[in-house]
């Protein structure tokens, strides 16, 4: 009986963990390029999902067109977020920039309420994979889809950052913005691109979570926060570790829900985060402002 419960916890934990992982990747991309904690990351997921919902209502979307539309709209939304937050306050104090992302999150949530209302909307599953079973381990169709989407996103992002000139520029700015600037890289362009890529990842996360939990106007902040927790667990530096942080958080949360109540689960999750930040702070090079 216990094994069955555990298998169920792993199944739901991995489905949610894949979404946390994608959000965490977006968080760390933005943080590494601009040293900014983006409070509006969750709203990128929300609007990405809602735009996809509206598109699916108006047009007949296949898996490929849905993926393309999600990517393109996520990219545009991420760029729009950059242009309306960090882009207008490049020289401002970090706290003012951070607060502007909070205000942007309110604006975007308000726009979502105006256009789509406050009722939850169910996003259809565009990319369908069959359930997977191996011994006691069982992964439902939604979980497999979320995992495939997220792992493929990590692989593509990793290849982009390693193999392309623009990707290497992003990594250079993450490591040392001043040295990258001396090598001819424009850090401002890199920051804008990081926001756009994080928008793309958030929209893909919406595609994974929309069919599971439905899309609601107030879901963004909580998911964004979980992305931050996952990114901190992963240490912000390596893509695979940050993504693994998301998966780990999802499974731990599911197990805590199984063992305790949902409220206590949240308490324990945030306690772990605070303890982690206190005991294992970020490396000194990540604390410096660009």
């Amino acid at each position, binding site marked *: 009986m216990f094994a069955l419960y555990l298998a169920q916890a792993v199944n739901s934990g991995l489905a949610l963990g894949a979404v946390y992982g994608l959000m965490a990747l977006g968080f760390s991309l933005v943080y590494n390029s601009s*040293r*900014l*904690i983006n409070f509006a990351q969750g709203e990128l997921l929300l609007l990405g999902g809602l735009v996809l919902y509206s598109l699916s209502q108006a047009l007949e979307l296949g898996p490929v067109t849905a993926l393309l539309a999600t990517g393109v709209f996520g990219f545009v939304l991420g760029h729009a977020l950059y242009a*309306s937050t960090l882009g*207008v*306050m490049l*020289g*401002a104090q*970090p*706290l*003012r920039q*951070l*607060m*502007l992302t*909070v*205000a*942007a*999150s*309110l*604006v*975007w*949530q*308000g*726009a979502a*309420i*105006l256009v789509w*209302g*406050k009722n939850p909307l169910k996003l259809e599953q565009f990319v369908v994979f069959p359930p997977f079973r191996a011994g006691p381990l069982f992964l439902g169709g939604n979980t497999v889809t979320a995992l495939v989407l997220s792992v493929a996103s990590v692989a593509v992002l990793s290849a982009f950052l390693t193999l392309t000139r623009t990707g290497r520029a992003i990594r250079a700015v993450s490591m040392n913005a001043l040295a990258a600037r001396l090598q001819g890289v424009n850090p401002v362009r890199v920051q804008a691109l990081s926001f756009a890529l994080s928008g793309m990842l958030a929209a893909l996360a919406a595609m994974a979570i929309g069919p599971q939990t439905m899309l609601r106007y107030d879901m963004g*902040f909580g998911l964004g*926060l979980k992305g*931050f927790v996952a990114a901190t667990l992963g240490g912000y530096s390596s893509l695979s570790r940050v993504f693994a942080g998301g998966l780990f958080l999802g499974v731990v949360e599911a197990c805590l829900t199984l063992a305790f*109540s949902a*409220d*206590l689960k*949240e*308490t324990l999750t*945030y*306690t772990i*985060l*605070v303890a982690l*930040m*206190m005991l294992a*702070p*970020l490396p000194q090079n990540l*604390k410096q402002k660009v």
Partner: protein
Amino acid sequence: MGGELRRLAVFLGAVGALGLMLPNVHLLALNQHLFLALNVLALNFSLGLGGQASMATGAFCGLGAYASVILHSMWPQGTLVIVPAVAFTAYACGAAVSKPLEKLGEGFLAMATLCLCLIFVNLVLVFTPITGGSNGMMVSHHPMLPFIGELKGDRANFAALLALLALGGYLFAAVRSSRLGRALLACKDDALAASSCGIDRLSTRAVSFGIGGAFSALAGMVLANSTGFISPGQFDLGLSLKTLLFLVIGGPGKLTRPLIAVVVLESLIAWFHALGEATVLVHGLILAGALIAGYWRETGRLRLLPR
């Protein structure tokens, strides 16, 4: 110190005069703005003086409110002991939390304290038999003060909020011009240089963080007394975010400007509540506009705005 206190006195005088003229229904709204202003002043101790961005305002405020309501229900005559004891407990909690978190940068400290706020709300939900959980708690006994009697009604709470703002403002100005204040400003400007000069950063910042926590707890006590009902929703992230947002808009370290920003912007936001579903959007636009205008004023792009 004198000039700032004069400006604070003018502001409190103007708000006091406004409060005397307003009917009770509008006074309740003004009390809500002053409650937020008191929280902003409390946060100014940690951010404006010590340079520590905290989002634990909701937790401290809730601690004050819940502790006050629970203790008053057990000992209705004990206001003179309960209020200082709760404020001191909040101070001690703030100081204890500040020490291990001191090494985190602004953004990470904000996130860590935000987690503390979430933990508090979830604990309130978990301990339902004591706190009432999501259903909240009714305030069964109002504080009793000697010579004044029961602190009840909007006018009495308005007076209490003004008195706390005056006390907090005076304390802020006094701390800033003291040896402790200079040590805090040194920690804020350059932590490494401050340590090199022999300043004990952990202890110094713990004091400002603790004082901020204590004032937030006092604000929570007045809120509970004013509304007659408390629930976890009153002390959630929204309160912490709003407090930090208004302080950043008003300018951390300034005494009167953040308080004016709260009263003016909150009144403006409340006026737009009639817009229904567009409220959140307008709310966000007002705050974003204030942040961007503040940045442009600092960089000289908006020469028409006062510097």
